[in-house]
């Protein structure tokens, strides 16, 4: 079982409703930020996976704390059950 699978396991976290993740950016920051901010859920593996657990109704992902980006939060993605598009 992977780390994310464990996080999403009903047995491991039976009451979980909200997942907030602090991700990191890879080496191609500019490309990634652009891609992340536009990607639909089915194209983004982590977000897609985190939203797959039906009993979780809120997923928030933060990236871009890295100072290489000038200290600005580069992107974040918020997903809520019932609204399967990024908000």
């Amino acid at each position, binding site marked *: *079982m992977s780390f994310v699978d464990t*996080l999403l396991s009903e*047995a*491991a*976290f039976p009451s*979980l409703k909200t997942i907030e993740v602090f991700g990191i950016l*890879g080496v191609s920051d500019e490309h990634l930020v652009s*891609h992340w901010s536009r990607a639909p859920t089915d194209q983004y593996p982590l977000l897609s996976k985190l939203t797959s657990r039906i009993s979780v109704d809120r997923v928030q992902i933060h990236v871009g704390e890295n100072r290489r980006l000038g200290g600005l939060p580069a992107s974040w993605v918020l997903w809520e059950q019932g609204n399967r598009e990024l908000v």
Partner: protein
Amino acid sequence: MEIGSRGCLMYDVDPKFARLKGRRFPPLEKLTLEVFPLAVENVDYWMENMDWSQMRSLDFRAIDEPTCFFKKSMGLVGGLPRLKALRMELPWFDNTRDLQEFEDTFRRFLGVHRDAGLSETALEGDYWPYLQAILDRHGATLKLRLHDPERSYGPQREMLSELELSDLGQRAPNLEKISIDINYTFNGSLVGPSSRSPISVGCSSIYILRNSQ
């Protein structure tokens, strides 16, 4: 800083603002301090002149030398019996003696018996020295936010291991919200092996059963 039900928000105040000559405050319910010098003399004055019995929420951000606050609060009669939420940007120390003193004090503070466990804990920074104490005392009641900011250079921050995450679920069975670091890249891989020693765990039998590695 909020005082009583109406609250009081103060900016750029003198660190000695609390010295309001004989005045006693209504019971404090929430205390938020940001970039505030927590001098020992101020803490002593606050502890003596404020009613801490109704304190529900502590939120400390970028506070230098917070050790004395936690140490003194444990000396209060009744402590902070209603405390439910604790948010803390963990401080940096430039010497190991002060760091050790803070770690010991903060762990003891987390372990103090209160009316009920903390229901919300948010630690930002190097939270590893306190994770065990949080789960031991507050796991059953908790919303948990653990976050160590991304590193710009050098070794990347440490994540919980899969086994530690599994153990966390066992020890915080009512967890409705979790905030957690995942060093996850665009190509879907996790970044960097952990060089940290794993936290020790209490529920060894369950832990072993969940060990799928």
